[in-house]
Structure formats: C-alpha cells, structure tokens
C-alpha cells in the first residue's frame, strides 16, 4: 500500500505503509520534514498536512481535539488534518497528501 506525498519543496514521492501506523510516524520515519514537536499528543499542530479532497471522507470525522488544535496550525484549510491523528488503513491506499508549511 502506498501514499503520494508532496513535500514542502513541491517534490512528490511515494511512501509504502502498513495498516495501523499513524501518518505522522510514517512521515517522520521517512525523514520528511515535519517537526511533530509533541510526538503525537495532539497538542502542537506541527505535523499538519493537507489531504486530497477526494480522500477526506474516507478518513472519518475530525475529532474535537484535532479540530481545536488546527486553530494553532500554520495556514489551515478545509482539507487540513494533523497527521498524528490519522491511523492508516487499506482505505488510504493511493491517497495523496501535501505537507503544510511550517511556522517560521
């Protein structure tokens, strides 16, 4: 199973994933430049990504905690998600995401 990741420089790469891991961990293990300062506690909003709109619904509802934390994300959009809150499954095979800009 694969994801298509566009990094901050605009380069696209494919990452292989297995079910059950979070997108944040996958990105970090692949050395993709997200800071994820709080290590997945949903308190820092520095693992922010944009999800291809066609795939948003398959990810399920945005939790209240995640929605609140997006208030502190850099340049939030309608398709913003925090990658530490996204547990990947076969339903995401082929999904495209873009890494959001980081705080200066």
């Amino acid at each position, binding site marked *: 199973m694969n994801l298509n990741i566009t990094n901050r420089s605009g380069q696209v790469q494919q990452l292989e994933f297995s079910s059950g891991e979070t997108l944040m961990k996958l990105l970090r293990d692949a050395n993709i430049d997200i800071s994820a300062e709080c290590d997945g506690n949903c308190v820092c909003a520095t693992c922010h990504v944009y999800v291809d709109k066609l795939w948003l619904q398959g990810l399920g509802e945005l939790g209240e905690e995640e929605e609140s934390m997006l208030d502190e994300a850099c340049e939030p959009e309608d398709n913003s998600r925090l990658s530490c809150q996204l547990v990947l499954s076969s339903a995401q095979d082929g999904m495209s995401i873009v890494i959001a800009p980081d*705080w200066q």
Partner: protein
Amino acid sequence: MSNLHTTDVVIIGAGPVGLFAVFELGLLGIKAHLIDVLDMPGGQCAELYPEKPIYDIPAWPVISGQELTDRLMEQIAPFTPVFHWGEMVQSIKGDAQKGFVVSTTEGTQIKAAAIVIAAGGGCFQPKRPPIVGIEDYEQHSVRYAVRQREQMRGQHLVIVGGGDSALDWCLDLQPIATRVTLVHRRDDFRGAPASVKKMRDLVAAGKMDLLIGQVKGLVGAKGQLTAVEVKSKESSTIVPCDLLMPFFGLTMKLGPLSEWGLELDANRIKVDTEKFSTSRPGIFAIGDINTYAGKLKLILSGFHEAALMSHGAMAIVRPGEKIVFQYTTSSSNLQKKLGVA
C-alpha cells in the same frame, strides 16, 4: 536584585529533567540557578499538556504534566534553586578551567563552574503567522505578548486566535482600546466558555468585532501597520489596525544554542553516556535535547541522565573531592540536606 550572579551550576531549561537535576546536584552539595524562556516551571509538561495524563512515570500510574511539575518543585525546594523566568540564554563564554559566564537576552549574567543544558525540544517561541512582510512590522506593530498594557490604549487592535490568550486579551483590552477586532478561522472557540460568552456579549452589544477568517495581508508603511486584510471563503475585509496580536501558541526552535560550539546531530546535542558531557568540557546535556546511541525521549530517561550527569559535574565543580555514594534512605548527611533529618 543585581543582574550578576555566581553559583555552582547553571541549568538551562526548567522542564521536568532540568528540575530533577537540581535534586541530584543538590544531594552532592551543588547549588544551581535555572533559566527558562517560559515564565513558569514545567517546560513542555506545563506549556503543551498541563492537563494531559502521563502514564509512564515510575510509581505514578497516572499524573498530569502540571502535577508532575508541582511535585518536582516540592521535591527540589530544600535545595533552594534560583529561577530566572522569561529569559533566553544568548551565550556561554569561558571553559571548564576558568569557569563559565552565561548571558541572557534580559541582561542577566551568571558565573558558574559547569553548565547543564536541559532545553527539551529547544526554545519555546511564539508562532509567527506566515504573512508576507510581517517581519517589517514586528518591531512596532505586532505583539506576541502584552508587556505594557498601557501601550494598547487608544489603539485599533486586531487579536487573532481562538484560545484563552486571544479571548482574555480581547476582554482585558476592549475597555481601553479604540476598537478590538477578534479574528478566528472558525466560529467556534476552544477557550474557557465563560470568556467566549463575555466576548460574544461584547460583540452583540457592538463594543467589539468578531471576524471569521484569516489575516492574509498587511497594510502600512515604515514598520507601522494601518490595516490588515482578513480573508474568508466568501469575502475579504480591510480592518483598521495599529497593533496586530497573533496568539497561535508556541513552537520550539533551537535558537542561539546552535552557536555555542557544541557538536550536534540532527539538531540534538551529542553526549557521552557516562557523564552526559557534550563536546565542550564542563557543559552537559540531559533530556530530550541530547542524543546518543539508543536514546529514548522519555522523562524517566532524563531523570537517569540527571543522576549520572551530577557525578560528572561534581568532578568539575569540586575537582579532587571524592564522592561518597550514599542513599537517601540511610544517609543522615543526605537527609540533612533534604531537611528531613
């Protein structure tokens, strides 16, 4: 109090690991000053997740970040550490032979025999909105914290954010500002419900404005803002603005640490695992800020590192003095230091 101090050890960072270092150093009779960029103890525990439960502190099946901080403060109180809050360390001059001088952004200077860096993920700094040209206005027209409330009198204020900082400052400054406009990305606020209600009442009474959207443009000249552009999906609004106050929380940056001549690996300080010494003798690094083979970023690992570092620091603070290893359960000497004997 004078800005010049002398002590045995300066600890940079007052998170759980920096606080516990006071304890381990204290048992060896070593005094410490702590410097933290935040204005309270606890580091990430207090700033990022004060209410979040932590489940992996030995003997605490569950404890919140705030409670852990409070307990550590209680535990180290007998050693009378000196705290310097809201200051960032700018430079470390000197060496292990002659001693060190630590200087902060607020002009504090501390002479010490050894330095312990317990800076966690780095220095907490306000998140700066990625608006083109904001750096030109930061000196006169952008405030990430309110230091002098009176400066806000008679100004058009644009406050951005949906948490307690944004709401509290709206309520506090509304009576003295010419006009307060609160800008938030959605019509839902995570701040305290009572503050949200007060803010909505002021809006309903026409005493302040609430705009749903994001600040995307700045208008002004020579470093002075005159207005900001707030964009939502449907519209764009120009709002008069003398001072822009974004409250998006804090983020961690390495800051001046990268210029202290320490060997780094992927923005972490390289240490040995015997004394947790850095590449600069006399400077130690413990907790999340360091790296070594097998490193785990756990509070409990940081506590362990603090104990070993203290024995390493002893050799520099009191060279030639032999350490008699003792237990707090049996040593009347240690119990005296703890004030329990």
